């Protein structure tokens, strides 16, 4: 049994020592995950890492994550559109600040909520499925079975999942933004609130979008999802030999992934304003 952060080489540590050991442990995990992300970058550019079997897993992952989560993401986008776009439209018009509709919606929906909400939905839906699936495979000896057939688990299991989820999240985010903006405007029209002409609304939103926003949305989509999916895959493949390790791996992975999602999103936001 490996020593806990509180014990080191058979001796008990002071509280400060325990905190230090815990910090070093977390740092080592972070380095490991960063190393995996780096290796995935290398691999995804190599054609030999994409045999047909790996491409099949990629297609399944895109289907499961991208297509499977589309209905729920669109419903969420519709509700966000009705509650935020509609209200923003309404109150800014009443305050005589129509010219701010576009900039505010771009800041709130496009740069902020879109990438974050889609990432959360996919983490809950696909992240949990990935960690559970890989942990079950590890515990059941299936990862070893792949290795005995000469398949690299990183290439066959991790690479297509991470790339598939990343592609799916980016596409879903674009859909999410479009649906929420249009549903908000449609709700305003339907409720006969002074929504203004559709061209004016479109002009206001589109003119507020700069090319930096496209980069920012891509960064806020891709960076967190790369981290969270890698964390889920690593946790799944690091599960021990007992079935009870599966829920533990899932709990650990999801808490770490949620932290990584919010920290990376906040960091990118801060960097974008520097």
């Amino acid at each position: 049994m490996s020593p806990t952060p509180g014990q080191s080489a058979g001796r008990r540590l002071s509280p400060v020592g325990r905190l230090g050991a815990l910090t070093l442990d977390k740092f080592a995990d972070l380095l490991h995950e960063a190393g995996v992300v780096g290796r995935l970058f290398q691999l995804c550019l190599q054609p030999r890492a994409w045999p047909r079997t790996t491409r099949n897993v990629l297609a399944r992952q895109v289907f499961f994550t991208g297509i499977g989560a589309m209905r729920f993401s669109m419903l969420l986008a519709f509700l966000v559109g009705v509650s935020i776009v509609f209200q923003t439209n309404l109150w800014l018009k009443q305050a005589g600040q129509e010219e701010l509709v576009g900039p505010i919606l771009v800041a709130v929906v496009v740069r902020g909520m879109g990438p974050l909400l889609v990432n959360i939905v996919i983490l809950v839906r696909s992240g949990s499925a990935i960690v559970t699936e890989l942990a079950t495979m590890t515990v059941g000896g299936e990862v070893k079975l792949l290795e005995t057939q000469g398949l690299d688990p990183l290439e066959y299991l991790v690479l297509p999942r991470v790339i598939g989820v990343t592609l799916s999240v980016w596409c879903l985010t674009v859909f999410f933004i479009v649906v929420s903006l249009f549903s908000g405007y449609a709700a305003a029209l339907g409720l006969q609130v002074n929504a203004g002409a559709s061209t004016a609304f479109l002009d206001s939103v589109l003119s507020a979008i700069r090319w930096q926003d496209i980069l920012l949305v891509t960064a806020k989509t891709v960076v967190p999802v790369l981290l969270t999916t890698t964390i889920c895959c690593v946790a799944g493949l690091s599960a021990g030999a007992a079935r009870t390790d599966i829920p533990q791996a899932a709990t650990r992975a999801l808490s770490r992934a949620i932290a990584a999602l919010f920290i990376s999103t906040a960091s990118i936001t801060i960097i974008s304003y520097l």
Partner: protein
Amino acid sequence: MSAETESVLHFEAVDLLQTRSADSALREVELRVGPGELALIQVRRGLLEIPLGDAVCGMMRPDKGVVRFDGLDWTAMSPREAQRKRHDIGRFHGDAPWISNLNIDENILLGECHHTRRDEAEILAEALALAARFGLEEITSKRPHLISQRLSAVYQLVRAFLGKPKLIYLERPMRGVVSEFSEVLIELLGEYRAEGGAVVWISSEQDVLDSTALNATSRYAVEPPHLRAQENTRA
């Protein structure tokens, strides 16, 4: 030609100590299987998983000694080279033989589709021909947990032979199944060996151990912590 190039599999004074149970650790293992040869290894019933299979596939680093496959030391190969070499071994697994989220047909074709550019229809035709030898008309698309132990064993054999690997490693293939297909298996092994394939067969079944039709080149018995060559064998 050196012994290394003549052997398909060669264990040279190998210690395998990192096992789940101390009872199954092995020391000073000497085993050599050449093209067309069959090594029959007897294990007693109840003995926990012996680590030979993992060492044969280069998945377990020996504590001492060298394991060579196809003339090459596993520890000297790059990871990618080792992965390619593992594809040259058809293995019948004693435990956890299938990937549970793939159908049986996908499981069978996985290795060949991953490592080669052969047409999938051609690989499937080869698999169907092998299955037909065991009396099966098709390869099921069911999930592994939905098939019987007997069918699972037959499909594992189909996978082991698929793509004509250089070595077939059979880990108790007759355990828990009716031996109705043992004749077919022995016949297939004969054809495979005639084409230069090497076989390692681990068994605890007396009828297999007593079989003369198997025509084993060498016989061993696992008596932990040793793998002892038995009489009338050349090792």
